[in-house]
């Protein structure tokens, strides 16, 4: 099996692996995007409320479930990372697959959350004045979901590589990147959920 483990050519000694550093910067950019949405929400709310065009409503319960799923998948991705670090390749694949599945469950839950809102008459488009607050929830969860889809693609790549013996103790960069990004996605959703829960 050892022969199958691809080895990488040596590289220059950088202070931090460029790929991980780039990821951190990408995450900062994403944070700014959501900071823009959140600030827009905060600024818009009192303005719209004064004109009676803002309703408060309960977030769909599915959004809470998806936050819990995000939390659990953070644990599984961590375990996947740890098992790759200690060269337990079988376990690594199991945990990666579990994370992948949880990611899909997350997407399904978000979709069900939207259906839930629609069933309560909270439309994404503006038919009633009150829908502004709903528009925000739709937009923010949609853009977050796009980030998650990106994460699932990344996971798929990592998983494929894991099955090709290309994720192991000496080849951790991709695993680390996936690990960090996945935590970010989870934390971001939990933050957004709490924000919408308490602000809305």
């Amino acid at each position, binding site marked *: 099996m050892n022969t199958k483990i691809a080895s990488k*050519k*040596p*590289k*220059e000694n*950088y*202070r*931090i692996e*460029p*790929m991980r*550093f*780039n990821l951190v*910067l*990408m995450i*900062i*950019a*994403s944070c*700014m*995007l959501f*900071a*823009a*949405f959140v600030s*827009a929400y905060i*600024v*818009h709310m009192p*303005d*719209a409320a004064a*004109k009676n*065009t*803002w309703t408060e409503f309960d977030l769909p319960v599915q959004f809470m479930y998806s936050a819990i799923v995000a939390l659990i998948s953070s644990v599984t991705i961590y375990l996947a990372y740890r098992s790759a670090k200690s060269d337990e390749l079988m376990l690594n694949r199991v945990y990666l697959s579990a994370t992948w599945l949880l990611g899909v469950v997350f997407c399904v839950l978000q979709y069900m959350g939207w259906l839930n809102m629609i069933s309560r008459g909270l439309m*994404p*488009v*503006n*038919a009633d*004045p*009150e*829908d*502004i607050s709903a*528009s925000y929830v*739709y*937009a923010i969860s949609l*853009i977050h979901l796009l980030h998650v889809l990106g994460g699932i693609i990344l996971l798929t790549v990592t998983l494929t590589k894991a099955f090709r013996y290309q994720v192991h103790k000496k080849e951790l960069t991709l695993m680390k990147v996936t690990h960090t990004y996945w935590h970010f996605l989870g934390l971001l959703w939990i933050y957004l959920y709490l924000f919408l829960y308490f602000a809305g």
Partner: protein
Amino acid sequence: MSTAALHTDHHHDHGHHEHKESFISKYVFSMDHKMISKQFLITGIIMGIVGLVMSLLFRMQLAWPDEKFGFMEMLLGKWAQDGKLDPNFYMGLVTIHGTIMVFYVLTAGLSGTFSNLLIPLQVGARDMASPFMNMLSYWFFFLSSVVLLISVGVETGPASAGWTVYPPLSAMEKAMPGSGLGMTLWLVAIVLFIVSALLGGINYISTVLNMRTKGMSMNRMPLTIWAFFLTAVLGLLSFPVLLGAGLFLIFDRSFGTSFYLSDIYLEGVGAMENIGGSPVLYQHLFWFLGHPEVYIILMPALGITSEVISTNARKPIFGYTAMVISLMGISFLSFIVWGHHMFITGMNPFLGSVFMILTLIIAVPSAVKVFNYLTTLWRGNLRFTPAMLFSIGLVSFFISGGLTGIYLGNAALDIQLHDSYFVVAHFHLVMGSSAIFGMFAGIYHWYPRMYGRMLNNTLGQFHFWITFITAYLVFFPMHFMGLAGVPRRYYMFTLVKEFDVWMDVNKMMTIAAIVGGAAQLLFLWNFFYSMFRGKKSEQNPWQSNTLEWSAPVEHLHGNWPGAIPEVYRGPYEYSRPDREDDYFPQYVPDESDHAGTGGDGHKTAPKRKSTKKEEVAENVMFAAIKRVFGWS
């Protein structure tokens, strides 16, 4: 000398001697930062020509509103029936001109070119942190340019709401012809552009922070690198916000949300059902990018100027640390002043005064930079190369345009001046002309590094003087028009009798614009001719200190054939009294110090004493400050 500078303990295993490149991988989908930089430059130049021609077209409309131009009909078809420019298309031209100049030429063309070329070469790295992302960055930019150009040709015309695309004009497909497909394509183009800017910026930051060669501590980085680095940080933090603003706009336009729309009656459609949205929200989001964006444009040009002025004055840059701190100060402040574009949106006057004070504080770091340029020039051995002239031109425009910023920053004055030609004058001098001059300075200075040949000096001189004079002729009179109340973004002024007095001035400005535009042909000829026929350049034609001149020009992956050179000192050690040569490259170790008094082989260089000239400069500056503040 350069071989002596290479240290050998640094292994390198790059594939440049292993793989052969195909045409596609070398010239098209290249991952080499030097090639990508040329791609950015050429694309930027092409976009620049388009933007320039557009401005000439609408300037002709302003100067001769009643005239008919046969060639316009030939060029624009139904948008210039009988040779008269269509009013809707006039607005489209203004919008696309602004968009092209701000984003495509002065952001991508300037940052994209010089960050790509200089960051790896000046910090001593083999390439960017992620060459692949770097390639993507260019191709997103390319796609974005194509989409924007296509948008000019669509049936209903290009986006016409101004480069700031304020809703409601931009948020409703039926608001005016340009709000239809043209606006949609504009948004697509900008989203692609933002992706490109982020991919590029991430790489620039990460390369500067992680991949500097041995000895290249942050305080030995050339000011170009500082400027590119901070510019990338600004972009990283502000472009996502524009993306957010754009996404909301897309939702409003195409999916029926009402983030920005409320209480609108549209002729031919009736009352819109959208309610509760806030157009001012868009302005906040837009200007949160918009103001940093103007510094994203300017700072690379300032960095280039620092480098060019120091090299061509044969003097250390005056106040290196002050320059860095000013750049940092400008970067920081630029995030908290966006409200000065919105003084008349009905914001709380208290908020207005906060934005006003913060805005005026920007004048401090800006002034520090200006004084440092002037004191660097003071009593230098000036070499008036075209690059040097363009840099000095930048300083001139930065002063004359920056001063009017202080007028505009006063909330009370801005009520009168907002949306007038005064604003147009302000930003065309401080941003348009300044940054374009910085870009030209960069091209003239680093052309030998890019193509291994020299640009023709005489043509460069003509190019500079004509451009410099005509730029002032075009933009300076706009101040007076603005003070007299002439509004910007108007198709013609013949219906307002009071503005008749400006007719002749308008003609003069248009003629100057045409002459200035024609002068760019000199540059284009020089640029493309010299690529093949220019005089072959030496390795280090300007006797410059920085690292990029130690690498061979030919296309070479990894930049240096051997190990990456080490760095021994700061980048601006010109005219050291203890040296015979008037420069001391960063990559030459002290041991090889062959000349002057200090050459007895000690490891660390003797602490540099300031030269006579610098002392004089310092004294002059302090005397001036004392005079200004009334100390004796």
